[in-house]
């Protein structure tokens, strides 16, 4: 049992960074020892191969958790680059794909705009994982106009539910 958490927000003061903290807390509470890959904090460079420790973690991982903001309905570029390298490394044992994300627009607005990021995981990444794992999401829509209560509720939901979504 091995959970790899990939984080892609540049600002430590962001809501997504807070969601990362609660993700890790929820996973530890459920008895996991997550391997964290923080792309901005570790100054990930897509021109170089994935560091050996991270590559080994991806190969051994039974769950991959992506914690990221959704910009233009899709992943940040740095995360796209990392995922592209990671599927080449071979997520051979992944049984769960989980996304923890915030989206600026409303649910209906994102639907109209195509939700391309969600589909990248469902249709391009999932088939590249040997076991065709299901993709589960914990998402806060309309974060640009959200209230403090909604944001707190999202963070609580992430911490409470993340443990049950991984394997």
């Amino acid at each position, binding site marked *: 049992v091995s959970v790899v958490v990939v984080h892609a927000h540049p600002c430590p003061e962001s809501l997504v960074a807070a969601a990362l903290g609660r993700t890790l807390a929820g996973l530890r509470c459920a008895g996991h020892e997550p391997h964290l890959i923080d792309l901005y904090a570790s100054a990930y460079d897509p021109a170089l191969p994935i560091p050996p420790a991270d590559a080994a973690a991806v190969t051994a991982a039974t769950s991959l958790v992506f914690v990221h903001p959704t910009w233009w309905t899709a992943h940040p570029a740095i995360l796209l680059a990392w995922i592209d390298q990671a599927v080449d490394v071979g997520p051979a044992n992944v049984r769960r794909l989980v996304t923890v994300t915030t989206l600026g627009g409303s649910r209906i607005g994102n639907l109209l*705009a195509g939700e391309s990021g969600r589909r*990248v995981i469902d*249709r*391009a990444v999932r088939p590249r994982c040997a076991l065709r794992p299901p993709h589960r999401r914990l998402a806060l829509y309309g974060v640009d106009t959200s209230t403090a209560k909604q944001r707190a509720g999202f963070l609580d939901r992430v911490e409470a539910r993340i443990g049950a979504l991984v394997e």
Partner: protein
Amino acid sequence: MSAQDRRAYFSAKPLACASVAADAQLVRRAGGLVFVYPTTLSTVTPGVKGWIDRTLVPGVAFNLDTGPRRGLAHLRHLVGIVLHDDARAKVRRTGDNGRRLIRRNVRLCGGPRTRTTWLAMYGCGVAEVAERAAFLDRVEHGMMLT
């Protein structure tokens, strides 16, 4: 998008980096916006995605304060010149998320006069020389029309 870019995003001056500001100025004056990329993971390359995230910010592509003002309404042409390793049937089955991102999401910022042109080559991994040449001709011809 760097921390500096992101912190500036919702401020009065969202273009924190000089080279990105220069690109945004080009977009404001442009008659057409053309994306040229090889499809990666069913979507645009990270380079294109990063450019969209950093350049098409509030005040350039859209405006958060004054409602759904379409920042790219001045564009007459929105063009994609796109390569796919997979065959057309497989792309159709698995979904073309780069096309979705540009033809839906970026297009939403355009206006009634913004026309979209999509020039795609499928099965690039196994294409013969003649097929490649034909695609290049099609691109040149298509760009003359636009």
